[in-house]
């Protein structure tokens, strides 16, 4: 009888399963990504130019930015936490950027990562105590956080209370070694296209990052955390550390999205992001499916367009939207993509 020996590590081959690893870029995937990039960067601008529906730029830019914030929420879901606090970080990121631009005179492009980092830092402070909570309890605190962020924006001197911060200048030029990468938005004829391109580029970067996270060791560890925190600890995972890390990354996304939003609307108020936004971020993830990296992007697109279509219903917009949400929960309590679960099976 020959039972194999336990190897003293150091392998020879990667094994045949390497090709099918989800982390690798197969040709089919590569083609999909290329098609997607062509769609958002070429086809959409061409289509809009042809149809003359310039207002679509605003809608699509919003979708892109909201889907970045939703990506963050999705990552918190990925470690098994229900996050209804992303609105707080979007608001905080927006204010960080607005204050740095208007009071320090910093370039918008510098404030963008700084807003993300500030939110990540904040998330570490807040996350350390609250990430020990689970389920409904965590959800509750994060929801409270959104409201507290709004109240703080109303109260703190630096945020200028209910009047908010307005007339924020458009993003200036971004140049490296004298080479202009992004021109000064104020000199552009129509900054709408520019904002769209920047927002979509940010979205692509964010989802690339998210996809890498999920398919690298960090993502595997997050999954282990989601499925069983005790077992994760027993294999040596520093669960507290990992939770805070994931939450900080998630909040980074929220902060960046918020900052970018502010530069488009050139203003921010305490009510710019509130509880309803936090709930919608969660809904985006849920609608798009929690098992798929690109789920939140799909969810945001569907939800935002749905909301926009309902605009014509005037005062009944909210009523119809909320009724649809209730019906959705009744009919598909496990999300839109659960429709495919039956035939899919397994992974």
């Amino acid at each position, binding site marked *: 009888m020959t039972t194999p020996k336990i190897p003293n590590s150091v392998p020879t081959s990667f094994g045949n399963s390497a090709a099918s690893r989800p982390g690798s870029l197969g040709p089919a995937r590569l083609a999909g990504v290329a098609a997607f990039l062509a769609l958002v960067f070429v086809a959409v601008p061409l289509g809009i130019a042809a149809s003359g529906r310039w207002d679509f730029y605003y809608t699509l830019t919003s979708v892109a930015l909201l889907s970045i914030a939703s990506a963050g929420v999705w990552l918190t879901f990925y470690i098994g936490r229900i996050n209804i606090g992303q609105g707080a970080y979007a608001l905080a990121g927006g204010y960080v950027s607005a204050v740095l631009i208007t009071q320090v005179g910093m370039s918008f492009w510098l404030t963008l990562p700084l807003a993300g980092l500030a939110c990540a830092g904040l998330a570490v402070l807040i996350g350390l105590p609250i990430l020990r909570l689970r389920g409904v309890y965590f959800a509750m605190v994060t929801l409270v956080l959104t409201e507290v962020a709004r109240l703080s924006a109303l109260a703190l001197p630096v945020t200028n209370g209910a009047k908010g911060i307005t007339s924020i200048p458009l993003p200036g030029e971004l140049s490296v070694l004298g080479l202009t990468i992004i021109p000064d938005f104020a000199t552009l004829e129509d900054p709408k296209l520019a904002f769209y391109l920047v927002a979509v580029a940010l979205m692509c970067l964010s989802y690339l990052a998210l996809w890498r996270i999920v398919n690298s060791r960090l993502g595997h560890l997050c999954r282990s955390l989601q499925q069983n925190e*005790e077992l994760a600890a027993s294999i*040596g995972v520093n669960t507290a550390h990992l939770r805070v890390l994931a939450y900080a990354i998630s909040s980074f996304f929220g902060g960046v999205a918020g900052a970018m939003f502010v530069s488009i609307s050139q203003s921010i108020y305490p009510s710019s992001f509130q509880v309803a936004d936090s709930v919608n971020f969660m809904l985006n993830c849920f609608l798009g499916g929690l098992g798929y990296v690109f789920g939140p992007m799909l969810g945001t697109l569907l939800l935002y367009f749905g909301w926009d279509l309902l605009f014509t219903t005037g005062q009944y917009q909210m009523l119809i939207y909320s009724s649809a949400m209730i019906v959705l929960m009744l009919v598909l309590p496990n999300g839109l993509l659960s429709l495919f679960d039956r035939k899919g099976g397994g992974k």
Partner: protein
Amino acid sequence: MTPILQVKGITKRYGGLTAVNEVSFDVAEGEILSVIGPNGAGKSTLFKLISSFVTPTSGEVLFKGDRISGLAPHQVARKGVVRTFQETTIFRSMTVRENVIVAHHLRSRASLLGFFLGTSLARQDEAEFGASADGIIDFLGMGAIRDELASNLPQGHLRALGMAIGLATNPRILLLDEPFAGMNHDETMRMVGLVRRLRDERGVTVLLVEHDMPAVMKISDRIVVINFGQKIAEGTPAEIQSNEKVIEAYLGSEDAAIGM
């Protein structure tokens, strides 16, 4: 030679209930030591104390002379003291292979950022984990089900997978809580052989809690018996089988009579 593990007067109280009461014993390197006792005697609690999943009310645990009680569970695991769970605890929505790969966490040399960026060190790590996981899976005879989703596995395989996860961390001491539960006689005997080889080939010290007496008697170098949280006996299988107190404790309970 100092023992690899020293349990010194460890006590755990839950409110009025003393789950573990002043238990002390030493474990020598490379030993297979079983902890037995009736249901509710405090065996699982003892393992949780050793792996630092619960903090002792008093007393301490030393690993290679260093105090490990009070550390976080992942720090204890990092030192090489790793427990498996009494309940079949695995990552349910991962495949068998993914379960074992993710459990290689402690062996990674690349940082999380390195993995994110896909540096060559990270890729080396990944390749190593994959190969090592395959080795462990084959060792435990689960090669045929390596790509099966863990939630679809039958009880016996779940136990083996729990052990595979423990092994993947490259432990110095492995604490197995009822590793043979839910297995039939043949499976149990095969696992007994595997645990033995684990010790013989890799020098892993094994502590185990088990109710299957024939298996315990066969596998153990030494046995510690606890009852109502207290250690009532310690010795070789032969000594334990003829110990009055032990027989009394077992006859007093509804547990199966001790013996081969």
